[in-house]
């Protein structure tokens, strides 16, 4: 029989872990993979984690490290990309366009920048808390957030000024 305590933990923690995984990856299939990879690692250390009394915090840190780890690239999972960059045309649905541009810009950020933004803007964690989770210095976290936001702002402003990539064709 599988470890019932671990299974119960999965049932209880899944909503929280899913929330992080989707925010980090922005893609359902990738998020599901990230959740599974994370839980496999947690299962491997379950006795120790359970004894230490903070399995959710451990799982969350594990998920961040897994997400940031270049080892996931070894699977060489093909990434779905459109045949052409199908940016939406400018129309009356401006907010939808902006959201779409933001989503694309966010997905194009380096993983470390995206992780810092997710932790900061999804859970309002402080720089010190984020630094502790990512095993970086607070100054590094501030720098990553600054660069991430600047990249997003640059992308959105560029699209706004030029009418978006669709208009440039």
């Amino acid at each position, binding site marked *: *029989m*599988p*470890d019932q305590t671990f*299974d119960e933990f*999965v*049932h209880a923690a*899944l*909503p929280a*872990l*899913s*929330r*992080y995984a*989707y*925010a980090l990856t*922005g893609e*359902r299939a990738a998020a*599901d993979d990230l*959740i*599974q*990879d994370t*839980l*496999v*690692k947690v*299962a*491997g*250390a379950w*006795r*120790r984690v359970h*004894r230490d009394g903070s399995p959710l915090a*451990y799982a969350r*840190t*594990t998920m961040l*490290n*897994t997400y*940031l*780890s*270049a*080892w996931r*690239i*070894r699977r*060489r999972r093909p990434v779905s990309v459109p045949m052409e960059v199908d940016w939406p045309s400018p129309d009356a649905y401006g907010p939808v366009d*902006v*959201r779409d541009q*933001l*989503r694309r810009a*966010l997905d194009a950020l380096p993983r470390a920048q995206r992780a810092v*933004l*997710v932790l900061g*803007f*999804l859970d309002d964690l402080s720089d010190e808390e984020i630094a502790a989770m990512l*095993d970086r210095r607070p100054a590094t976290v501030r720098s990553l957030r600054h660069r991430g*936001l600047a990249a*997003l*702002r640059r992308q*959105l*402003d560029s699209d*706004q000024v030029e009418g978006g990539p669709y208009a440039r064709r």
Partner: protein
Amino acid sequence: MHDVERLLRDELRRRSQLPPPSAAAVVTAVHGLRRRRRITGVAAVCAVAVLATVAGTVASLRPTAGSAPPAFPSPPPVGAVSLLAEPEVHFADADHGFALAQACPTDVCQLYLAQTVDGGATWQPRPVPGATFPAGQGGSPATLRVLGATTVALDTFESPTRRFTADGGRTWTEQPVQPRGTVPEIPEGGLAEVRSEPGKPIGIVVLLPDGTSSTLATPPVTRPLTSMWSNVLRADDGSDWVYGGDDNRTWLWVSRDRGRTWREVPLPGDAALPGNGQGPEIAHGRIVYVVESYPKRRVWRSVDDGAHWADLGRDLPPDPGGDIGLGAVVAFDGTLFVFGPPLPVTVYRAMPSEDRLGRVGDVPPWQRVGARYLQGSGPKGTEQPFRLSADGLTWTELRL
């Protein structure tokens, strides 16, 4: 100017409100993944075997005109003791070996430990008290860890204790899996395995000859994150090897003083990139082979702890897509065998005195199980009956 921070907050909130996947499905997937990853610890040969199994299954199930329905092997007689479908076998020396076996009189199977003291000619299976598992369960119900001629430890995922025998399976005790205290070195008769800890350098847990565990005081000082070998490989000369990697590169460490100090072995070519290469093959603690399947097929050999590397794989057929991995096994005399799928599996060989791999034929791949070789039947090398060999030339059926 956009209010990027507000937009970002909205976007993340939207993402986080997606419904989570089914918890039951995730639990099932996680347990399945753990089983699969445990199995793939025997990485190289298993990769060949899995590819071959899939190809063979597809071929056997594909209907052909006038063909009879595919024949499946009949189940073993009720109560008969048989090897596990994916055999766990290990020889401590040329004579003494162990294999996990099962008897499934109902939908619940009893786990057995089979022992041989004559190099695999005869076997004595003994039930492991209290070790049962559901019939049809994929993978092994326990991890076989042979510490000596009569000493075995069995770890299972669901139990906080390990089963331990010092008399070949006649009597068993239970020991805690959790390591206690630290030890300065990996002792003779002990085994070690890597424990990856997110965000921290790896740790090494030593399984001591009495079945208890302790943490090694001085593991190699790595950056996070993971190890690709779960076991610390002890070579014939007593050196210990750890292979893995961090975000930036792949590394290989060696200790020649039983784990007290460690030295990094530089890896060649693309094998040093993060996530590249596969577990090195070590012969006599002095010859190191590294097999690369992607982005190029290359096989490297070093005899000076990585100071110099020679490419032996110049004649391997290219695989531009990098989709078909190469399996490898190193023989007792230091000869490297490389298995190249798809079917039939082609075997290439380089003896220690040779500077390139040469094709030696199409035969089922085999693997090393301690002091013996193990080979399945059929072109895939994964089917019953399994055979044992001391030299890779003559084979004896493994019959319990």
